[in-house]
């Protein structure tokens, strides 16, 4: 852990950069749990399903309406507040993830990104690019704008 911190410190120069969050987790024991489970699973022999395509393809429009609704409900009459919003962003991300999982798209992996931007007259530019299988993978965006802030939710679904 200390070596990692040293390496990070060495990299600080005039233009600051910072690694906020890195996978795998610093605590190695958490990573090991997954590997133990995976090797245990390997000992069980499953028959191949030979299924290259998903059973149900990701439908962007229904997910979009659901997420827009969640956003509207959670953020109705919520004013911008520094401390509350850092918890709210995590809470909202978890809620959206649970809702997307409920749709029942099997074998899909989801990535939810929630952004809250306070409106103070500054400009912000957000861009995303990806490399994935265009046949099955897709993304959805929902936003909620109020007087003091803008909330943006991005959902990526990968098979």
């Amino acid at each position: 852990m200390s070596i990692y911190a040293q390496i990070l410190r060495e990299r600080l120069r005039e233009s600051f950069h910072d690694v906020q969050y890195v996978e795998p987790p610093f605590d190695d024991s958490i990573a090991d749990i997954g590997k133990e489970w995976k090797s245990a699973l390997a000992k069980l022999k499953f028959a191949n399903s030979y299924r290259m395509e998903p059973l149900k393809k990701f439908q962007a429009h229904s997910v979009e309406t659901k997420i827009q609704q969640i956003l509207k409900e959670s953020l109705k009459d919520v004013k911008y507040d520094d401390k509350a919003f850092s918890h709210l962003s995590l809470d909202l991300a978890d809620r959206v993830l649970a809702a997307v999982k409920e749709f029942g798209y099997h074998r899909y992996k989801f990535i939810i990104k929630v952004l809250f931007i306070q409106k103070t007259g500054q400009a912000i530019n957000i861009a995303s690019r990806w490399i994935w299988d265009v046949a099955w993978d897709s993304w959805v965006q929902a936003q909620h704008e109020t007087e003091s802030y803008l909330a943006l939710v991005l959902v990526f679904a990968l098979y």
Partner: protein
Amino acid sequence: MEVYHRPCDEVGFNAEEAHNVVKECVDAVLGGEDYNQNNINQWTASIVEQSLAHLVKMGKAYKYIVTCAVAQRSAYGFHTASSCFWDTTSDGTCTVRWENRTMNCIVNIFAIAIVL
């Protein structure tokens, strides 16, 4: 029936390498520049595209999603959170926060393993 083990995926996503790659891309595009409304679209696009190109050049069997947010540096509040549902042993993420005198930039990389 043998289970085929791919050696590179045993260690999961190499966030350190990805972080270096992205940092170089951002430095190359935004290093020494001041915030400029005319160029900002082009900068965000090139940061993301170059990062993606370099990540793919690493030659691993991964799908990548790269997100970049660049904002003018002033007094404003900004919160971002991500929640992911994936295979924690093989998939991973890396976030790089970069700033200079006039701009703040956050780049997120998500890597999902392609299970062949």
